[in-house]
Structures are given as structure tokens and as C-alpha cells.
């Protein structure tokens, strides 16, 4: 059966090879560091393909996390996935990266009726999204301070960063999840399920959620005036 290659770099560099029929994870690699996507990603893919004698052009497709996540790392995964897709002539499917955390919540024993997942957006903010117990996205993704989150259980590393603000919002971090980051294995599984449901995943545009941050300098504004 053909396999999917799943890639997510919205947090750390993470790669998985997944059986397209059963969803079984055949192999995976996730960097312990959050700043080495450029160095590690290609090597992870090389090793995974070699270990499983997987020929790139025989993949069922590539599933890639489109973020949100810190931009520089996020782009590494996206440009790699698009390039693999171009060379191997296989489809590239974009999946919102916070879904990977939601999938992990669905695997726990007591899934709340509604819950929030959150990741590190830096600059004193988190990326977050709200789900129901079936993993359906109810709201998000957003970027905001933890103080603005819904009053629900919050999963993921984003819940560990600003506990006081979270408490202020009436939300609370779920203990077992406080070190969870998006991983390619769970992202890929979500992608396979969504494809089976007929969800359109053809858009691989990055979810930056913030403008490019550039301020028009005062002297340029003056010129325009």
C-alpha cells in the first residue's frame, strides 16, 4: 500500500512515514530542538525513506503542516514539501498544524466536550484553536495572549507558558500535555482522515496570522504626506 510522507516544522522539525490505509506510523523523527529545521529536515526524510525502502515517487502524497508556527521554521517544511511534490510528482496536502495537538487529545482517556490546544507564538502570545470532543475545529486558529483564551482545558506547550494569564481567563493547562508540540505522525493521521472525508487540503499557504511586521518608517510616511 502506498504511504504518506508527513512533515511539520511549525514547532520542531518532525517527519513521519504513514501507511495510507491503516494510518499506522511506519517511522518518525522529531528534533529535540526548535531551531534546527534547516539542518535536520532533509536528513530526517532521507533516513526515513531509506529505512523503509520507500521510493519518493511512489508515495501516496505528502502531508505538510501549514502552521501557525514561528515563520522561519515553518517555511522550511513548506518549501521542502512543495519541492518534493514537484520532483516526485505526488500531491501535497496542507493541514493546519494545531490539528496535530488536537489529534493527540483525542487519544487521551477523558476527552472534554470542548477543549483548546495552544502552541508557542513567541512575543508573549500563543497560537490557539478550539475543538469539540470529536476533534472538529470550532474556532481558530488565532494568535493572542493567553489571557484571551476560552475558559476551557488547554492542551499543548502553549498552556505551560503563561499560567497566570490562563487562570485569569478561567482556563487551565492540562498537566500531561504541557510539553506537547505538533508532530508529523499525528498531523499526517489527521490529514488522512480529512482526505477520506473529502476535505479540500490543496491549499499549502502558510498560516502566518500576523502581518509581516514591517512598519513603514516615519520618513517614508512624511514623503507621502
Amino acid at each position: 500500500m502506498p504511504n504518506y510522507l508527513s512533515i511539520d516544522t511549525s514547532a520542531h522539525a518532525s517527519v513521519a512515514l504513514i501507511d495510507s490505509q491503516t494510518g499506522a506510523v511506519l517511522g518518525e523523527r522529531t528534533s529535540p530542538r526548535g531551531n534546527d529545521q534547516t539542518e535536520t529536515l532533509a536528513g530526517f526524510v532521507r533516513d526515513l525513506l531509506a529505512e523503509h525502502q520507500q521510493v519518493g515517487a511512489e508515495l501516496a502524497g505528502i502531508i505538510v503542516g501549514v502552521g501557525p508556527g514561528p515563520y522561519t521554521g515553518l517555511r522550511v517544511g513548506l518549501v521542502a514539501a512543495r519541492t518534493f511534490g514537484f520532483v516526485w510528482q505526488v500531491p501535497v496536502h496542507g493541514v493546519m498544524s494545531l490539528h496535530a495537538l488536537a489529534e493527540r487529545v483525542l487519544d487521551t482517556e477523558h476527552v472534554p466536550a470542548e477543549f483548546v490546544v495552544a502552541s508557542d507564538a513567541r512575543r508573549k502570545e500563543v497560537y490557539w484553536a478550539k475543538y469539540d470532543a470529536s476533534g472538529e475545529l470550532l474556532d481558530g486558529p488565532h494568535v493572542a495572549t493567553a489571557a484571551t483564551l476560552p475558559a476551557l482545558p488547554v492542551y499543548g506547550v502553549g498552556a505551560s507558558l503563561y499560567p497566570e494569564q490562563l487562570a485569569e481567563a478561567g482556563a487551565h493547562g492540562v498537566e500531561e500535555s504541557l510539553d506537547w508540540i505538533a508532530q508529523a505522525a499525528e498531523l499526517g493521521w489527521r490529514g488522512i482522515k480529512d482526505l477520506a472525508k473529502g476535505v479540500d487540503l490543496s491549499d499549502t499557504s502558510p498560516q502566518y496570522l500576523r502581518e509581516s511586521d514591517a512598519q513603514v518608517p516615519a520618513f517614508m510616511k512624511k514623503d507621502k504626506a
Partner: protein
Amino acid sequence: MSTPQHPLVLGIESSCDETGIGIVRGTQLLANTVSSSMDEHVRFGGVIPEIAARAHLEAFVPTLEQALAEADVTLEEIDAIAVTSGPGLAGALMVGVAAAKALALATGKPLYGINHLVAHVGVGVLEGSVLPPTFGALLVSGGHTEILKVTSLTNDVQLLGATIDDAAGEAYDKTARLLGLGYPGGPAIDKAAKDGDKKAFRFPRGLSLPKFVGSAEEPGKHRNNFSFSGLKTAVARCVEHFEAAGEPIPVADISASFQEAVVDVITSKAVRAMQENGLKTLLLGGGVAANTRLRELLAARCASAGITLVVPPFSLCTDNGGMVAALGAQLVAAGAEPSGLDFATDSSQPVTNIVLEPRS
């Protein structure tokens, strides 16, 4: 046909605001496709790194497709891939390097992470140009101002001098802003200067005092180095002076005088460095190579010093993938070891590091 001496190499450039993909067979340029995000930076008056990086992501695959079509080659036919690993903007470099690694892995081709500045010099071998074994290079652009000594393109390049603050192109951009001339500043000031008097104002030539320059026998610390921050300040004071007096700013005269200060110091230092290092040929590179006054004065000073000046076509002077492919082809022909897939970008990669060694 590609042969060991004429390998077919694809080069990728993303160190600043141009996404460039070039394809070279030996010393023959087959394609040089450039997608620039320059228009998106205009309203900011300078390159915004995050905007450049976003544009590289969107441009990469379309630019690759276009270059392959233009060169009429397939990825299977390519012998090797070269990519700029530095110096440059970190976030921009990472998009090109990540893409290059994916391309190399997916095609099974060897990958070389190479030096952007040396690649600027590498275009000198293209299209039948014959360079002597040892020569000098002057690189002037928005990102760099350097004098190089090239003993071997593939394994011996030395930095003779460089700017210690702004690049020449940056000084142009900042001055153009002060004068309300828009971005990019180089062409804008060049144009405004045409109607101006270059002797109207005497602006400072950075690092020209004897204490910095020394003598040929006892060279000062900054003999071959540049500084443009004092010049920028002097222009700002000059503009303020006219504003405070309520007089119109003599844009043409200031442009011409500023340009003369930049070009005078660059050309005199470059020519002296050639003479003192026994170099008979000087190659000019970088986007500011399009500047008419720079070319004119450099040509005159090289001629009187008996130095042959080589100026590649403008499309090869600005950042492009062809230059990366050109240097890549030289490295492949010289038997250099590929860099592998595990190297990191180096935003301040020194010119002595022409090709990255594989990580063990």
C-alpha cells in the same frame, strides 16, 4: 552533453530579495530566472527580511520550473545543485537552502553550499570570458562592499577590504530617502546626479585619513576598508541646513556630490589594492555595478594604472542563480566534495569559505 569538465549545474540564490535559479553547462549560461520581491519593499525604503523570506517561499517552485523550461533540460540531466549558504539574510537563506536540500534529496544529486560573494566573482568565467589565474574583484551592492583577491575561484579567495558599517548600496538608499528620491536609491541618485555639480559640496571620504590608511610599507588598519556612516551624517546635516534656512534643497547637487564621494573612495581604494597586490585584472560585481559614475571613474582609474577592468552584463551583476551555478560548475569540475544535506546556513560566511564542508 555534460562532461566532467563541463558539468550541468543548477544554482539557487535566496540571500536577499531575489529568488534566483540559474542553469549552467560548464561556462555556458543556459537559464537565469530571477523573481524579485523588490516592489514589495519600495514603501519601506529598504529590504524587509520577513517580506523577502515570504516571497522566496512562494517563488521557489515556479522559478525552478521556469528555469528548467528556459534551459530545456530535465532534473534527471542535472549533474549537481549549488545553493548560496551565506552570507546574507538568515531567514531568506534558510528558504533557499531548505529547498535546495529537498531538491537534492528528491533527485539524488550532489549538493554544494557555496559562498555568495565568491559566486558574484564566479560569473566572470561565463560566456567565453577568460580571466587570468589571479585577479581582483570589487563587489558593490545593497548588501556588500568588498575588495577580493582571487588566486583560485575554487580554493583560494582572500578578503582585502570591506565596509566596516553600511554597504555602499545602503548608503545610496538612506541618502535617497533623505532627498525624497525613493527606493532603490542607487538608480534614483544616479539619475538625479546627472543634472548636478559633483563639486558643489565636499562630503567626507570615509577611512581616508593617514592614521587609517598608513603607507604601502606600513599599511594602516583600514587601508582597504570603507565606511559610509560619516558620509550619510554629513548629507543629513547638509539637508537640515537648507531646511532650517527655509531654502529649497539642491537635490541634484547633493546627489552628484554624494555619489562622487562614494565612487571616489571606492575606486581609489580598489585600484590601489590591485596595484599593491600585483593584480592586473579587476572584475566588478554587485548591483551598484550599474551605476554610471562608478563605471566611468573606475574605468578611467584602471586605465591609468594599467589594470584591465571586466564588467559582466548587468543581469549577472545583481543577485542571481546563474552566478551560483557558475561557481558550482567550477567546483564540480575541480573535484570539490559535496556539502551533503546536514549543513547550516551561515549568514556571515567568510569569503575564505568557498564551499561548505560536509558535517561529520
